[in-house]
């Protein structure tokens, strides 16, 4: 198959399962490289940072892999997914973990309703962003998480579950989404395409 588009790096750390993301990018016919090597990841055009497991062990694995300072400083366009978005914040109350500190604020656990927040929920874009290009205003995306990010200047998408939280964030060339675009049908694929082509 002939691939086109920019080379996308998938950051692998620990034993995370990247199969769904690889399948989704394959559908978009986008070339990908999966790696935990900062030198190799530094040479791709854009990065996707998936989340695996819980905050503390994820931060430990990033530290062990020597990815931490590179992740904090890289200026490559970057999309964090699920825990990959949460790790952008200062800290998480999940096992009291210091995170990357790219965004201000603390990740906390849902205190009401069934936890995890699991299933399809709407995302309300809170401003224009290339990530939302061509998507309906209250598109459904698939969520599965027990901890959530606060609302702030960085919020570009808002979702309600007992309370409002940031379901999508942006800081310069870094984007983050709490939901799983790779599991969110046609709209999820559209969002990934937007990141690849427009961000």
């Amino acid at each position: 198959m002939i691939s086109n588009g920019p080379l996308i790096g998938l950051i692998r750390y620990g034993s995370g399962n990247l199969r769904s993301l690889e399948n989704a990018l394959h559908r978009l016919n986008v070339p990908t490289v999966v790696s935990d090597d900062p030198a190799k990841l530094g040479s791709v055009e854009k990065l996707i940072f998936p989340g695996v497991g819980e905050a503390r062990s994820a931060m430990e694995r990033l530290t062990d892999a020597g990815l931490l300072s590179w992740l904090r400083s890289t200026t490559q366009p970057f999309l964090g997914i699920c825990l990959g978005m949460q790790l952008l914040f200062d800290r998480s109350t999940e096992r009291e973990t210091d995170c990357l500190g790219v965004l201000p604020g603390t990740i906390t656990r849902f205190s009401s309703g069934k936890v995890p927040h699991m299933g399809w929920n709407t995302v309300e874009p809170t401003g224009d962003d290339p990530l939302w290009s061509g998507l309906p205003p209250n598109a459904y995306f698939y969520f599965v998480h027990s901890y959530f990010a606060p609302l702030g200047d960085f919020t570009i998408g808002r979702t309600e579950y007992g309370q409002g939280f940031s379901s999508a964030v942006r800081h310069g060339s870094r984007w983050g989404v709490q939901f799983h675009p790779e599991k969110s049908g046609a709209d999820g694929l559209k969002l990934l395409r937007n990141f690849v082509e427009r961000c």
Partner: protein
Amino acid sequence: MLTRRIIPCLDVKNGRTVKGTQFVDLRDAGDPVELAAQYAEGGADELVLLDISATLEGRSTFLSLVTRVAEAVMVPFTVGGGIAAIDDILRALDAGADKVSLNSAILRDPSLLEVCARRVGSQSVVAAIDVRRSGASWNVWTRSGTTATARDAVTWARETVERGAGEILLTSMDRDGTNDGYDLDLLRSVSDAVSVPVIASGGAGNADHLAAALTQGRADAVLAASIFHYGRLTIAQVKHTLAEKGIPVRR
């Protein structure tokens, strides 16, 4: 607003979808990859694939099927049936499944739940509980519903969550395949007892049954097989009925 999930279930034996009544009497209902893709296109919020093959060849066929389903659909899916150890779970997730449901294995060794939750996270661990009414309470059954245990369903549900299950798939064996409606008392009792989502299973015959499970039964999601496989109802029709009753669904 979080929507309620409609989940078609595919029972797979030696690479084909089958569906029986009260766990026996299997009929052929089609190619699983094709069916999975059709359901995802038609609005299924998730899928469940249960391997009911009894042989080793059947099991390896199932794993390659999981890989093909992951390529064919972009909605989450759970796999279950015969999963006995952490290695089986890692293989299923690596093949592209999002969650794994555990049934007999955790009844034999409940600590497997802790092992799994630590290794892959609770969000990927589903406790599947098959129950049969016994007087005023419900007994847990094991080995594909062939053997009774001494466990009470509500107590066991609570324990699976304490040990790390992120979701419960609750099947009423009394209702399974009957199309008489879900066991609402059972659903309510378990749903109120645990902090994680509960999937109702066993007994769906029409859209009103699904609505009742989500309202009176307080289930977070509903699983159904035969009403979808034999074309009695489409997922869109079911969601239309639920929406008319004010139940939030993704459309």
